[in-house]
């Protein structure tokens, strides 16, 4: 056998090596401080104090894994199922004075903020485009944003979100008006309580408008989660990650980024396992959700404009 893993002969508990997948042993649960001991023997990264590589949130041990969510009746936060019932949204522009434009968005417990910098000269010569500006997006989760602590370093999940954000925003920006320059958008998720990507898109488009970047349209985001025959719009963290009680037929999540005035979809992502009909209906539901958001965003933006120039007189 090429890769026959064999029991390690001397399976000492703390042999100076972090436990790897291929070591074997009885069931153990290490408390934090004990595990720390190991790491003093290792060639350490002197730049930062590192916690143990394997630690888990106590919540995993306290409750049953994968709590089963009901698929009937009202949702945990009192919203209705099978309705385009989005959480009330609070938005405000111009939070960060250093940035060209910024926005803060709160939907239920999901809180995130976005800053826009530029247009400025591109950093890298080889990426300069003579005809078109460049958009860079960066989306990060604060380590405390999720129930489980995350890392400050951008993981592949964050990169995926950044990419989705990029693809959702790019069609809306008049990039041809900004040749040789780049526009930077960065989103920080402060608290993740579901539908983060959708709200990040909305928040970022607001920040771009606040920065005075020319856009064809605003971009609004909305998510939904299908669970068997019923669905929930703008799902919360529990609804997104929880396990369903019903069979796994027709289950999955969908996020849509939508340009309301131009009637164009600029971002679309789904996972799970759904039929074409469900998916099509889901896209329509999300579009409806975006329209519900539209007046709120418009109002916030006009408010910001008015605030910046309260009495614009005829010039």
């Amino acid at each position, binding site marked *: 056998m090429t890769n026959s893993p064999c029991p390690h002969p001397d399976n000492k508990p703390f042999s100076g090596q972090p436990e790897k997948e291929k070591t074997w042993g009885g069931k153990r649960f290490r408390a934090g401080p004990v595990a720390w001991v190991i790491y003093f023997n290792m060639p350490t990264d002197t730049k930062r104090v590192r916690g143990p590589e394997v630690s888990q949130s106590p919540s995993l041990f306290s409750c049953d894994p994968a709590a089963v969510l009901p698929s009937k009746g009202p949702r945990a936060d009192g919203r209705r199922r099978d309705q385009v019932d989005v959480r009330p949204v609070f938005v405000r522009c111009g939070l960060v004075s250093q940035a*060209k434009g910024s926005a803060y968005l709160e939907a239920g417990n999901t809180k995130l903020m976005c800053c826009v910098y*530029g*247009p*400025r*000269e591109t950093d890298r*010569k*080889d990426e*300069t485009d*003579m005809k078109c500006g460049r958009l860079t997006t960066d989306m990060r989760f604060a380590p405390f944003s999720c129930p489980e602590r995350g890392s400050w370093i951008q993981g592949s999940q964050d990169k995926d979100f950044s990419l989705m954000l990029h693809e959702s925003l790019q069609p*809306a920006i*008049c990039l041809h*008006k*900004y*040749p*040789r*320059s780049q526009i930077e958008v960065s989103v920080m998720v402060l608290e993740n309580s579901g539908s983060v990507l959708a709200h990040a898109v909305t928040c970022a488009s607001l920040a771009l*408008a*606040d*920065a*005075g*970047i*020319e*856009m*064809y*349209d*605003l971009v609004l985001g909305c998510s939904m989660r299908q669970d068997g025959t019923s669905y929930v719009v703008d799902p919360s963290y529990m609804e997104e990650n929880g396990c369903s009680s019903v069979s796994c037929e027709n289950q999955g999540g969908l996020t849509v980024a939508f*340009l*309301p*005035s*131009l009637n164009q979809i600029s971002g679309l992502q789904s996972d799970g396992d759904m039929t074409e009909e469900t998916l099509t209906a889901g896209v329509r539901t999300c579009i409806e959700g975006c329209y519900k958001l539209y007046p709120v*965003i*418009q109002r916030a*933006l*006009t408010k*910001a*404009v*008015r605030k*910046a*120039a309260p009495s*614009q007189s*005829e*010039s």
Partner: protein
Amino acid sequence: MKLCVPGDKLCSSEDCIPGTGVYLRHGYIYSSLAGYVLRKNEGEELPVISVVRETETQLLPDVGAIVTCKVTSINPRFAKVHILYVGSTPLKDRFRGTIRKEDVRATEKDKVETYKSFRPGDIVLAKVISLGDVQSNYLLTTAENELGVVVAHSEAGAQMVPISWCEMQCPLTHSKEFRKVARVQPEYLQA
């Protein structure tokens, strides 16, 4: 005044001429900015419609624009500058430009010496002639009477006074230095 956000349909293209901050799509004019809608009659048949913001929208140096810049380095072939203002609008971010030797003045181009035209630290009025290519920066020219050095300091550190189109004098030491001096137009004086 009416407020609008990006994507708002403002009017049909038959009613107005699109100005700034708007775009044309399928025969209608839409807003591309969040701001106030402004209709202006400029003697044309149709009014010009544009969307303006309180703060000047982000300007980028464009071909034909007059820019104010600061010289950062010089070599025999060109001078490198930082663009500080476009027109009278300050830029938030730094943009780099190049004034090639042949673009310093309009006549006797082959006799130009960059060292006798600019020095690092000079404030120069110039015009954008091209966005340049991938390797180079914005290309600028000073080949007009109104363009060239407006502020320069002598070796003694004093701000010099122009005495001809190609010379400036230090008020302290009375020594003369060569520059491509601009004949400053009153409208740019405040810049």
